[in-house]
């Protein structure tokens, strides 16, 4: 142990003495480790962001849209979900404590005084803010009576409120939705943007009855329903049950595809991770190549160094160093350098991540995991690429080495 310590100290001494070699190895390893660290952190960031969004979406919630997968891809949603479906779901799924219908209309003109704006109108029940965990911040929610009575009331999103009202308090004011006057009863709290760039705070929520009757002239179909369950752990059983339940209700034959789409938290994670996945894969390959190049730089410089220091090896062998001592010294040099390179790489990654986040709004999350992976990889490079030169040094014959 004591001997190992003394030999490690010799490694440190040589790292200090052969500064040029140290610097080159350090830089190349640092670059490789930095890119890998950024990738690990970006992957973690993507997952974290996904789970954050799922948390907001509701880990116990499902969203069912009308229209199958193909219809969804073209951006067209068929209306296939009926108010009767919603009642039936309420009746049949006991642990569904909230089943809320929703219908939406895009690019509807709203105006207040002389200000006009195109926005999204969502029709729902008084459970909307609860089912989305989206509290009303100012004023109050609309009520069951508002829904029953087809009243012209609405909740407004923060962004739209700012656009239409500026500094004015929107609560109690009346806006025009197309031609219909609607009284704002409350303002929703801020929700931000989705990863795909949708402004969630740009919307008006109104009683679904009002919208269906007065804006859509519709009595049967809605766009979607959202369901929250008491027992989150069974959520994926409910996905399957919901699918067969709705297929049966819609009288779909076995070979027919679903005419609805069920979105669960799992789908959201999949989608978000796929979004960053391609970038991560590209960076991953780049980072791995950078690290391998770093390894070869290290191996080459160390082979040169072993040749240059043949005499040193001879002297050490003559004064009693065993093969193992020489191996440990040279391997120690490479591992210490790559460890240092790994640490520099981690710092570099922190800087690079800041840059990435500021230009691309890329979610990056640094944790001990990124640090440990970087450190392990730098050791792997140090041992993997340092072993061959160290072995060559250790296996030099003393008499050959001392001749130089």
């Amino acid at each position, binding site marked *: 142990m004591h001997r190992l310590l003394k030999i490690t100290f010799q490694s440190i001494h040589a790292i200090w003495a052969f500064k040029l070699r140290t610097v080159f190895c350090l830089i190349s390893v640092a670059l490789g480790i930095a890119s890998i660290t950024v990738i690990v952190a970006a992957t973690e960031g993507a997952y974290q962001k996904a789970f954050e969004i799922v948390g907001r979406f509701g880990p116990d919630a499902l969203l069912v849209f009308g229209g199958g997968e193909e219809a969804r891809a073209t951006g067209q949603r068929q209306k296939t979900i009926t108010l009767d479906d919603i009642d039936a779901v309420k009746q049949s799924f006991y642990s569904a404590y909230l089943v809320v219908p929703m219908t939406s209309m895009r690019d509807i003109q709203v105006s207040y005084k002389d200000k006009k704006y195109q926005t999204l109108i969502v029709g729902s029940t008084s459970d909307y803010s609860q089912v989305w965990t989206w509290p009303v911040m100012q004023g109050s929610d609309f009520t069951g009576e508002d829904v029953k009575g087809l009243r012209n009331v609405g909740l407004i999103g923060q962004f739209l409120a700012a656009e239409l009202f500026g500094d004015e308090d929107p609560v109690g004011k009346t806006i025009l939705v197309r031609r219909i006057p609607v009284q704002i009863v409350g303002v929703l709290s801020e929700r931000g943007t989705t990863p795909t760039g949708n402004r969630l705070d740009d919307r008006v929520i109104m009683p679904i009855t009002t919208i269906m009757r007065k804006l859509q002239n519709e009595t049967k179909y809605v766009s979607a329903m959202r369901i929250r369950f008491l027992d989150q752990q069974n959520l994926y059983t409910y996905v399957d049950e919901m699918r067969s339940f709705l297929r049966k209700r819609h009288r779909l034959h076995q070979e027919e595809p679903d005419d609805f789409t069920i979105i669960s938290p799992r789908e959201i994670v999949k989608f978000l991770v796929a979004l960053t996945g391609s970038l991560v894969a590209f960076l991953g390959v780049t980072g791995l190549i950078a690290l391998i190049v770093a390894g070869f730089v290290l191996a080459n410089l160390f082979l040169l160094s072993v040749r240059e220091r043949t005499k040193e090896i001879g002297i050490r062998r003559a004064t*009693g160093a*065993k093969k193992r001592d020489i191996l440990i010294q040279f391997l120690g040099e490479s591992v210490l350098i790559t460890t240092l390179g790994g640490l520099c790489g981690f710092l570099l990654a922190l800087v690079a991540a800041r840059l990435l986040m500021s230009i691309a709004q890329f979610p990056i999350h640094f944790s001990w995991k990124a640090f440990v992976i970087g450190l392990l990889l730098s050791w792997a490079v140090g041992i993997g690429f340092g072993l061959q030169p160290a072995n060559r040094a250790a296996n030099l014959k003393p008499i050959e080495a001392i001749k130089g």
Partner: protein
Amino acid sequence: MPLCLLDDIRKTYKMGDVAIEVLRGIHLQVEQGEFVAIMGTSGSGKTTLMNIIGCLDVATSGRYMLADREISRLSDDELSVIRNEHIGFVFQNFYLLPYATVLENVLLPSLYIDKRRDNFEQKAAGLLQTVGLKERIKFKPPQLSGGEQQRVAIARALMNDPDLLLTDEPTGQLDSKTAVEIMDLLAQMNRDGKTVIVITHDPNIAAYAGRTVRIQDGVIMQ
């Protein structure tokens, strides 16, 4: 028992298909406390003989006893231990580590001792004082003259209290005045009880030794 006993030592090098016998049956005894010069021209086999005496190389055949141990059959690791404990080398080209200080160079043999700290630094400083380099302790070898570098090498050779000081043309790179100083130093070490073997082609150097052995074409000339 003599310190070194070489009995019919032969060394053959294979160069492709040709085998060259460099040592052809060496018989040699060196007693404890002796000062022996091994003289020979280049190509006589004196360097090969030194490598074998110094346990840097092993003979092809024959028996070599050093400090009551049979060397011929030892493993590489065991040879390292023997070199570390029993032999101090002084080379023609000094062979110091250029990036380490004088003190660190002298400490080199102590790195490969398994014993715990034995206050090696104090001992190394003491040795440097003995060879007259107390002031140069923090210097690096390139800052020293040739004579000073060889003194550092001698101090390093003495670090682990070896039984045998094995020197190969110790004055080969030095001017005649410095050469005298270095040989006086080696003679002093011998008077203090060290066994010294000096390998040289120079009769003036061999004259310091108590006994001179001549080697020619791989055999000892009587």
